[in-house]
């Protein structure tokens, strides 16, 4: 038995990517490679859980990207949660991709699977990064390797335009804000390592970094991480919805956006130090920025008729929950944020899977077209319902646990603004999700003539469920979302380990 390590977790998808290219011409073999790689990756990541529960592991240094700053990796609870959901959902997403890409006869499938594997490798790099430089490098790499996925339908002008928005916002923010913040941290503290309590302690204590500068660097980091989609840096996320649904599902509901909020949490915890922020009275604004983002995005989502766009704005809102958890600047809030990273992932990927399933089977993309679709696609819409419950934060789904923790943290620390935001947004969530379920199950389907004019299922034959791999994946993720409610142990333990390690 080979001992697992972060390096193995990064290497597996890279090797898988190479094999995907080699086997590109034979698609069954190629898809088998993807599935086997995903399985191996989950095993490798899961083997790291015991180490993660003990707190940050020893650092493994690889290459000296800069003379004094190496590319370095370690295992710690927060990164573990992220790695675990990304690698676990990659398996289900690959099954789903097979059904979706074949069902819709998409082109350039080898490129698609290759970029997917590379994205997962970058995600593993982000999750296990042991210093800021490593995180930054993997973060930028993730932006680049997901670009071909977003522009998958190029040369269609819409895809090219979306690609520009996507890369433009993500790279501009990271180069213009995150990079100077990182270099500033390095110049003022001489360290970019991720350690509990951050690296600023000494510099703040001896006055070489004044509190306002410390707060400014934190500000640059928070807005530099555009992947966390804190408003007004959220525009890339709805734009990225032109990509094929598996991309929206795994990357723009889980891997990429979670890379953003994960970085927010990781940097706040391990580089900046939330206790330092609280001590020096900096960073309080983030709670309000995130809270406004939560409510505003939910409000925009109310008016989106395109299902994927509505889901995208819901994602923007849910991501800001996580940022808000971090912005409470205390261990309880951070624990809730970590938990919500996992909880949101299962719910949101289910919703996207369902949206793609509807598109594949019925070629419908709008909410207003979904009347009565639950009768024809009971599994898809059943899973969709569970996903919605998780988004709203109702039992028996994962969303309930994290929302409970968030509320608990807000009450305990007497941050009534956060409490208010959570209540209002829960109502808004219900207002934009429940009507979809109502339409799907309780309204009569439209008369066949109107429904079948553009769908390929014309000829009067009503469509049924999507291809079986899609149904397997969508029910699988829905089951996960429910399972986490009953057995939250792994994620809750990791989140708790994160909290316990933090200085108060």
């Amino acid at each position, binding site marked *: 038995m080979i001992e697992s390590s972060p390096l193995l977790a990064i290497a597996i998808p890279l090797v898988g990517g190479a094999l995907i290219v080699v086997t590109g011409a034979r698609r069954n073999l190629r898809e088998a490679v993807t599935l086997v790689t995903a399985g191996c990756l989950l095993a490798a990541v899961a083997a790291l859980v015991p180490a993660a529960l003990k707190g940050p592991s020893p650092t493994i240094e690889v290459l000296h*990207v*800069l003379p004094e700053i190496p590319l370095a990796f370690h295992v710690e609870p927060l990164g573990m949660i992220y790695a675990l959901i990304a690698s676990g959902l990659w398996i289900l997403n690959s099954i789903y991709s097979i059904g979706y890409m074949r069902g819709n006869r998409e082109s350039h499938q080898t490129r698609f699977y290759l970029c997917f594997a590379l994205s997962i490798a970058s995600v593993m790099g982000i999750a296990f990064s042991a210093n800021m430089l490593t995180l*930054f490098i993997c973060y*930028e790499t993730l932006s680049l390797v997901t670009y071909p996925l977003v522009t998958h339908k190029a040369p269609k002008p819409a895809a*090219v335009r979306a690609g520009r928005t996507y890369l433009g916002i993500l790279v*501009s923010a990271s*180069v213009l804000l995150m990079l100077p913040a990182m270099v*500033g941290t390095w110049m003022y503290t001489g360290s970019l390592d991720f350690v509990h309590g951050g690296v600023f302690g000494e510099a703040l204590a001896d006055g070489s970094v004044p509190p306002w500068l410390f707060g400014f660097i934190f500000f640059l980091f928070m807005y530099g991480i555009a992947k966390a989609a804190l408003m007004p840096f959220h525009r890339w996320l709805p734009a990225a919805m032109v990509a094929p649904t598996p991309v929206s599902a795994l990357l723009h509901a889980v891997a990429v956006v979670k890379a953003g909020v994960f970085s927010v949490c990781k940097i706040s915890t391990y580089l900046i130090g939330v206790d330092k922020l609280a001590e020096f009275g900096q960073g309080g604004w983030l709670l309000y920025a995130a809270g406004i983002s939560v409510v505003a995005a939910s409000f925009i989502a109310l008016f989106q008729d395109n299902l994927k766009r509505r889901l995208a704005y819901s994602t923007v809102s849910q991501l800001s929950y996580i940022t808000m958890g971090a912005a409470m600047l205390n261990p309880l809030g951070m624990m809730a944020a970590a938990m919500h990273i996992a909880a949101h992932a299962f719910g949101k990927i289910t919703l996207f899977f369902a949206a793609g399933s509807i598109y594949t089977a019925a070629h419908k993309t709008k909410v207003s077209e979904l009347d009565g679709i639950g009768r024809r696609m009971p599994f898809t819409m059943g899973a969709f319902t569970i996903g919605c419950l998780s988004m709203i934060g109702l039992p028996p789904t994962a969303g309930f646990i994290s929302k409970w923790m968030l509320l608990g943290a807000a009450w305990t620390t007497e941050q009534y603004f956060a409490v208010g935001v959570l209540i209002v947004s829960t109502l808004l969530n219900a207002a934009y999700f429940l009507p979809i379920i109502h339409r799907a199950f309780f309204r009569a389907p439209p008369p066949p003539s109107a429904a079948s004019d553009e769908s390929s299922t014309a000829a009067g034959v009503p469509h049924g469920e999507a291809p079986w791999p899609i149904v397997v994946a969508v029910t699988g993720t829905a089951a996960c979302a429910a399972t986490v409610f009953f057995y939250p142990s792994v994620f809750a333990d990791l989140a708790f380990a994160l909290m316990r390690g933090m200085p108060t």
Partner: protein
Amino acid sequence: MDALTPHLPVLLVLTPLFGGLLAALMPRRGPAPWIWSALVTGFEVLLGLSMVKLVRQSPQETITYFIGWWPAEYGIAYEIDALNAYVILVVALLAFVSTIYAKSSVEDEIPKDRHNFFYSIWLLAISGMVGICATADTFNIYVLLEISSLTVYTLIAMGKYRDRRALTASLKYLILGSIGATFILLGIGYLLMLTGTLNMADMHEQLMLMKAEGDLAGNRTILVGFTFITVGLGLKMAMWPLHLWLPNAYTFAPSAVSALVASTATKVGVYMAFRFIFTLFGSVYDSSATLALMAFCGTLGIIVSSIRAAQATNVKKILAYSSVGQLGYIVVGFSMANESGVAASVIHILNHAVTKGAMFMACGAVVLRMGNADLKSFYGLGRRMPATMAAFTIGGLGLIGMPLTSGFISKFYLISGALHDGKWWLAMVVLAGSLISIIYVWRVLEVIYFKKPEKRAPVEEAPFTMLIAMWILASASVILGVDAELTGRLAEFAARVLIGGAT
């Protein structure tokens, strides 16, 4: 090699000099001149490597070579330390790779009966550039500068066989370049008047003595000398707004010449600026006002030329304007006059050379296959010339400064330098300028990968020699970006040597 070791500094210059003279005697047709040039430049790389090895054995000391054993006061001395050993190696490596690359490009663009003359001038240009880096004698710098400049004018003018606009481009460069060289000569003349010596170290010593005696306060001669030299250098290294000769010269030169000149010629100008500003005038003359002006010019240069690059429709011109912008980074870096800033300049000399070299080479391959470098010729090339376009893409990512390419390392040092003095605004302006590079690179990349080709005729991949050359540089860009241990330490060390002269 041991017998040659003491003569290494001068051999570095003589090898391409006599190699170039001999190349003119080669048969006019056939591959002989090319093989000869490849051998000469290959040997030059070996010499450069052993020079670096020699310097590394005792990094604190300077290796001095007196030509004809005349003492430095009367004769010419060559001095090699960590900084110029490094720059010489960069020039030699780029010269070698460009020579390999030149084969197909020259066969295509230069008449069959002139190949021996082409390679003769080519080697002479390399000799001049290496010489500027090696010599410690200011007048010798001027002589070698003229050798390299006159040969480069000629090389650029040879682009006329493809596009007659090369002639006016070359003439413009000739006029502006000569003004620059004359200014430098005038500046050297003033200094000679003041100090009675031409040797750089000696000149510095004399000036220090005068300063100690209080003769320098309010001395106009040194002010005039410094100003002439600075403006001359600005012209030579194409610092914005003295860059007007560059865009057309790079655009219309033969492809191989663009690759060589873009990656080495302006870098040698930057090296001269290091020597004059830090080694010669350091701590003698308060250059902070000039450096502030240079920082201003560099910053504006980054922004303005990047915008021009984003407007151009000829890919070679895009790259040329981008070169002016990238030079802005180098200027901004050393104008900070702190360790990280100067290190950024030093490291960007190499990083930009490999990045831009690879891109000009890829562009030249397109010229060879499609006949020109218009944006339209790049339509859909991603599928037709995949290896060439992949190299171009890696180069483009390097220009943007994406992590894991060499450009990122330069950017990191540059921002460090700015923040070292607490200049957040400078860091922000430079980074905002660098974002424009995303626009001009992405314009080309979108065309390469997303557009349908205009003509259906099949296009062949670039010839083997071209691919080898551009991939050496493209992979160098990645390697230097993944592991900057060596180059970073070297640049930091060179920066300390230079700044040490200033304090």
